[in-house]
Structures are given as structure tokens and as C-alpha cells.
């Protein structure tokens, strides 16, 4: 028996279970950790699809950076999550209805193009196939403008986010390391010549 289906079902089971857990566990830190697990297992699935560059980038960007910040923020929140669950039963029918409609919509879109007879099984590549190289050669030739545009938009978003949150408060105290480095011993310290003990007989000035 081929090993690929075993690996696929192993990862797929964990992925589905973790995704369900993300929205059902009561503790939000646990939910974030399940989301991390979901990202990680989907990276495993992408590896199985010979998309190793995307898989590693998913781990690097989403698991390694984005989710760390997410976890950071969620851990700082001290929220009691009980009140948010109160209306669960009351809103359940609407939720089920929305979910059903979405499932039907997805099936309507996906079903006609689904299955091996419409696409055929992809041919597995040999060991010398480099997904990284293939991706790069397409990304920097055919999709160059789209790629550059996406980069520019992201840069714009960063600048905008910084400008929105940047404000100088007049009484804000901060240190200037340049000034700190320039400080010399003479600026801070004054050596005073004095006798080590008061003379006897004069009477101590207490």
C-alpha cells in the first residue's frame, strides 16, 4: 500500500479536528494553539502536494510570526468568556441556517469541477523537481506586475498603520541614546576635597 494516503488522512484528520476545536474550546489561548496546529498540519498537506516552498513559508510567516503575536495579544486579555456563550442555544437555529446555505453554495460552485474525471490525477514529479525554482520563475516573469503591486500595497498598509497610531504626546518622556553616550564623567561627578574626620575639640556639627 502506498504511504501517501496514510500520511494524507493522518494530517487531514488532525487538521479537521483542530479546526473544529478552534471554534469550540472555551479557552481562547487553547483556541489560538489549535489554530497553530491547524496551520502546521495544512503545511504538512502542502508538502504532500509538492509545494514545499509554500508549506515552509506558511510555517514561517503564519506559525512563526503572525500567530506568535496573536498568542501574545490573546494571553494579555483577561476576559471572562462566560457571557459570550449565553445566547448560544437561542442563536443556534440561525447559525445552522447560515452554515447550511454556505455549504450549499460551496457545493454548487465546486461540484461541477470536482473529481478525478474532470481534472485527472496530477503526475508526481521526480526527485530533481524543485518547486521553489518553478514558483520563482513564474512569479518573477508572468506575474511580476501583480507581485510588485501586492508588495507596494502591503508597504502602503504598513506606513498607514504606523501613521494612524503615531502621535507625539507633549509630556512623553523618552531617552536619547546619542545624548546618553555623550555624557562624560565630569558632567555627573564632582570630587570634593575634605578631611576624613572632624578635628577633635572643635565640636562636631551634627
Amino acid at each position: 500500500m502506498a504511504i501517501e494516503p496514510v500520511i494524507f488522512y493522518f494530517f487531514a484528520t488532525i487538521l479537521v479536528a483542530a479546526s473544529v476545536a478552534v471554534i469550540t474550546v472555551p479557552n481562547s489561548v487553547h483556541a489560538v494553539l489549535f489554530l497553530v496546529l491547524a496551520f502546521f498540519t495544512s503545511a504538512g498537506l502542502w508538502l504532500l502536494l509538492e509545494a514545499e516552498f509554500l508549506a515552509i513559508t506558511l510555517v514561517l510567516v503564519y506559525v512563526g510570526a503572525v500567530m506568535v503575536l496573536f498568542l501574545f495579544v490573546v494571553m494579555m486579555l483577561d476576559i471572562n468568556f462566560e457571557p459570550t456563550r449565553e445566547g448560544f442555544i437561542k442563536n443556534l437555529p440561525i447559525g445552522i441556517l447560515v452554515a447550511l446555505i454556505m455549504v450549499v453554495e460551496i457545493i454548487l460552485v465546486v461540484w461541477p469541477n470536482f473529481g478525478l474525471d474532470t481534472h485527472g490525477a496530477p503526475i508526481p514529479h521526480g526527485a530533481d523537481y524543485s518547486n521553489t525554482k518553478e514558483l520563482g520563475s513564474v512569479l518573477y516573469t508572468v506575474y511580476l506586475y501583480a507581485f510588485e503591486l501586492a508588495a507596494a500595497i502591503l508597504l502602503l498598509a504598513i506606513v498607514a498603520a504606523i501613521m494612524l497610531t503615531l502621535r507625539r504626546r507633549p509630556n512623553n518622556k523618552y531617552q536619547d541614546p546619542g545624548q546618553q553616550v555623550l555624557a562624560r564623567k565630569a558632567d555627573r561627578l564632582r570630587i570634593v576635597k575634605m578631611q576624613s574626620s572632624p578635628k577633635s575639640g572643635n565640636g562636631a556639627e551634627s
Partner: protein
Amino acid sequence: MLQLVLDIWNWLPELVQILLKIVVIVVPIMLSVAYLTLAERKVIGYIQVRIGPNRVGPRGLLQPIADGLKLALKEIIIPTNANRFLFVIAPLLVLAPALAAWAVIPFDEGVVLADIDAGLLYILAMTSLGVYGVIIAGWASNSKYAFLGALRSSAQVVSYEIAMGFALVGVLMAAGSLNLQDIVLRQQGNIIQWYLWPLLPLFLVYFISGVAETNRAPFDVAEGESEIVAGFHVEYAGMTFALFFLAEYANMILIAALTSIMFMGGWLSPFEGIAVLDGLTEWVPGIVWLLLKMGFFLFLFLWFRATFPRYRYDQIMRLGWKVFIPVTIVWIVVVGLLVLGEVGPWFDKA
């Protein structure tokens, strides 16, 4: 005899072969970790004009084994109201990526467990996972000190990862490959050919960020024993603590190996092609050069710890964001120009 061993090796199933290779990599790492702790205590001892541990075994050489035994026999204490599962799994989450990253490290030409094209990216992904163990440990401990340590650590690691990534972008541009073996082979030649010289600022940024990533002194605010006791692992005892310790040292060795591979020519000899010296050192196997280079960087780790006082938190953030990231961005442009102009002796090769 050798033929027999080869026959047995080829007869083994592939999975067993890979497992044996992993054992061959992991066991020496674990031994190096054990003796790195002894080396650290000895080196810092001599720097501070002390002798260091010298009681257990000849010249104190059995000290790490005694330490390991002690930690293994101690009780694992789980604090009240701690999250049991996450508390126990956190040390494993720190150690596992530190070991997994070794899969793509080439020890000599062709001597590598997984020769993948996206090796550099894989290393970045794996080293960025280690911070989860630290955050989870701090959160699951149900202790304010541990939580403070975890928050400091995550802020620091996320900040320095950016500078580290940019430094590696420079290496990738210079070598034109993400494969670690190719990166070493592009530095073929003597010591002048190494990427150390054209990428000098990136090299410094990378190594200093590596020290920060491993939470080592002077960037050890996550532990901060004088302010927050022991930071994120304050509640850990026995084997669970030992795993954090193992991970920290395994990460140090990893950073040393990566710096040697990407900036110092990996397993290549520094004297290649130099008339007399090359002849004298030709017999030295490549892995010895790699180990010597790694040893040098590991010594730097210990030296830093004995020399520098701990950075203040705001200074750490300033160094990461306002100094290192601009330096790397400027130097990436410089590297681009160097590669474009085919400046020798590094970039004029075909």
C-alpha cells in the same frame, strides 16, 4: 569487514536507515550540549579567575553526567492551577524545533540528512517555532514571573527574527541558492572567498541576532534572574527544566553551525589553494574545520556572557528595530550592487 557493514546497511529498509542517521546526528549534539555546559562553567570560571567545577571525575570531566543524573532523579513539580498538559508539553516544543533544524545542516560535501532546495527557509521556519514553547511555558505555569518572562521573550524573538531573516536574504542573494550545501560550495577557495567579507555587517547582525534569539546573555531578559527569578522556566523542576536547558544549548550549537556555514565556508578549509599551508593541512577532514569554526562561535557565546552586563529592555528593542533592520536593508542593496557588478573575488564566478 567494511563490505559486510555496507551490505547490512543496504539491506536495511529506508525508514530504518533514516532513523539511524538521525541517531548519528542527535547523539553527538546531546553529548556536545552536556559538555558545552561544562565548558561554559570552566571558561567563565577562568575568565573570572576561578577554577570552575573540578570535583566530579578527573578535572571535573564527569560533572555534566552528575548534573544530568541529578536532574533526572528530581521530582517534576506542577504548580497549582497550572495547565497540566501545556505545562508538560512546553519543554518539548522548545527542544523539538532545535533538533529538527539539524536535518538540513551539511557536515561535509554530501553529508546531510535532507538535501532540500529550500534549506535556508526551513531553518528560518524551524527556529521561529522555538518561541512557542517559551510562551506556552510562561502562560501554563500560572505564575506572574513566568508570564513576564514569556512576554519579554516573545517580543524579543519576534523583533530579532526580522533582522535575522534580512541578514539571510543577503546570503541568499550572494549565493543565489537556498540550499545550504550550494551556499557553502559558492564560498569555495581560501579564507578570502568566504561571505564573511562582502557580507560583514550582515554577519555581525546575524550572529548578534542569533545570541538574542537563543535568549543568551547579554539578551537574557527572558530569564532575568535578578528581576524575575528565572523568567519563563521559574516553575520547572527536574527533567522538564533539563529539557529547557538542553534546548538552549542545542540552539546555541545550531546558531554556531549556521553562522559557520553561511559566512565562514562551512566545512571548507581556510587555506585552500595557498601554496604551503594547503599542502600541510590537506589531510584534515572537512568536518574538523566545521567543528573548529563552530567551536570559535560557541566560545564567543561564553565570552559574551562573562563580559557584558544585561541589556535593558528598551535598549534591546532599539537595537533590533532601529539599528539592525536599517543596517541589513542598506546592506542588501549593497549586496545587490556587488552581485550585479560581479565584484571579485566573490561574485565574479560563473
